[in-house]
């Protein structure tokens, strides 16, 4: 898989503040890449460097194989949405899109494409109104449309849903999902639930340093492989001991009882969970239990995120 964005040793130092330290990260082409971190982690600084709004103190980056530079040639490869997008108030939404499109060159189907974008981001009815009359949410939607209007290889979105109401948030997330495979979306956010729903890759940044970067499912899986959630129907007092006796099981605790159904949390020795799962299936048959669930426990991204940040702080 080729990389849409490559960052090598990216470092940014402001007066008295180390905003970014030696960030090396590749963003595979065609992915929806979530960029996570607490406030002040360096997410916006990274996006600003890629967009050309800030200069790296050290290191380099490319966007679609074009070097990020002050001259701005790499900006032909990207569309950018700021946290609080601003436009010329005297232009209408449609004129704003035309203006941005012209920077990307002549496009025979430009007007149709602009109509389609206005429709898709939900401001078609306001397309001929001056942007000075737009609400914050409408500006955000126009911001997404202008990021897409040049059909860029990469879209950088800085907190794209932070200013939106729940409906707008869902719309934007749906739109991002649609863009998968069409372009590369690299976006920062602190709403972890959204990342888990939309992103196929994540990177976690803290205090300007990369903590972890991985495909979302791999990241989640790396934290869940040694814990099983086992649910039986018809379990009794001996079931817990029976589970504990299975080779590879480290601990067993009763998580919940609900009538005939009992849920157990089974932690396994490192790398033994697949064998333990098979043994549990055999145990259920031999003990005459109804096996309702025998799956690896899935942690949500928020838990993984907090664990990673905590680990880093403990290590520090």
């Amino acid at each position, binding site marked *: 898989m080729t990389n849409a964005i490559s960052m090598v040793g990216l470092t940014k130092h402001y007066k008295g503040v180390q905003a970014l330290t030696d960030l090396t990260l590749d963003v595979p082409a065609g992915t929806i890449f979530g960029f996570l971190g607490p406030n002040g982690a360096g997410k916006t600084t990274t996006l600003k460097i890629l*967009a050309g709004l800030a*200069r790296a103190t050290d290191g380099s980056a490319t966007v679609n194989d074009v070097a990020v530079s*002050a001259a701005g040639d790499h900006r032909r490869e990207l569309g950018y949405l700021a946290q609080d997008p*601003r436009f010329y108030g005297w232009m209408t939404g449609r004129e704003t899109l035309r203006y941005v499109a012209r920077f*990307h*060159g002549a496009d025979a189907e430009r007007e149709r494409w602009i109509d*389609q974008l206005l429709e898709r981001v*939900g401001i078609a009815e306001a397309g001929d109104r001056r942007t000075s009359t737009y609400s914050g949410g409408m500006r955000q939607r126009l911001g997404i449309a202008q990021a897409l209007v040049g059909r860029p290889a990469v879209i950088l979105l800085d907190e794209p849903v932070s200013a939106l109401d729940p409906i707008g948030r869902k719309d934007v997330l749906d739109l991002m999902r*649609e863009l998968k495979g069409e372009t590369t979306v690299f976006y920062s956010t602190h709403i972890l639930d959204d990342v888990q729903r939309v992103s196929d890759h994540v990177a976690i940044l803290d205090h300007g340093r990369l903590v972890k970067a991985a495909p979302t499912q791999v990241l989640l899986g790396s934290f869940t492989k040694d814990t099983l959630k086992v649910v039986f129907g018809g379990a009794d007092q001996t079931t817990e001991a029976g589970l504990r006796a299975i080779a590879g099981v480290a601990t067993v605790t009763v998580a919940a009882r609900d009538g005939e159904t009992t849920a157990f949390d089974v932690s396994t020795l490192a790398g033994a969970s697949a064998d333990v799962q098979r043994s549990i299936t055999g145990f259920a048959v031999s003990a005459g239990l109804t096996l309702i669930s025998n799956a690896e426990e899935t942690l949500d991204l928020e838990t993984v995120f907090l664990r990673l940040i905590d680990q880093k702080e403990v290590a520090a």
Partner: protein
Amino acid sequence: MNAQSLALGPATARASVRSGMFLGFGTFFRKEVREWVRGRRAIVVGSVALASAVFMTVIMYVVGDSAAQSGTPVSMDPTDNVLIGWAGQTVAIIVLLASMSLLSGERDRGTLAWGLTLPVSPTSILVAKWLAAVVVLAVVVIAIPLAVSIGVATVVYGGLPNIATVALFGALYVAVPAFYVALTLALGTIVKSTGGIAGIGFLVMFLPTVLGALVPIIAELSPTGIGAWAMAVAKGEPASPLTLIGFLGSMAVLAIGAKVIFDRQEV
């Protein structure tokens, strides 16, 4: 948003665009001109310049008799009376006030940060802003007031002014907006506030006059004297080449300084 799906597709129909130092120049220049024309700035600035030019053209006709009685030399020559109003700093002040927020205004509104994320180079932004402002101001502050003044002088003083002299003066006088727009843009790359830009701009405008009284060569070398130099050349009077050298040198310094600083700009 509706359920219509969005396919970006390959941008096959896209034509190539200019790259390098002047990436995005044409589009940004057109935006700048539209901004001048659509806003009230050009109308207000043009109206003030026109009123000032017409007033100065007819002033000698109005007060000529009393001035003559008091012994003041009076000329009823139409060419002299078209040009008399351009000897002061009126146009420089108008240009300074009209252009002082070219960069700081965009920075305050947040549109400069947006512009710098588009495929347009910092150099294109500066050059497009400078060129659009100079073109618009040359038309509304110089060409239109001079043309109207020619008409007024013809009627009031009973003869057509020397068109070649006035035209040469008008062409050379474009150096005044060229210098002051370059000055405010260059200041805008360093000074964040519009008030600060105006303050320093006025200092640059008047300081050489004060210092020139003590050390004459300062006034001669100062680019702020380029308007008087244009007047002298148009009228065929002696004009110091030092003023032209000072103007060209200061334009080069402003251009290079603004580019170097703006290329490193973070917003």
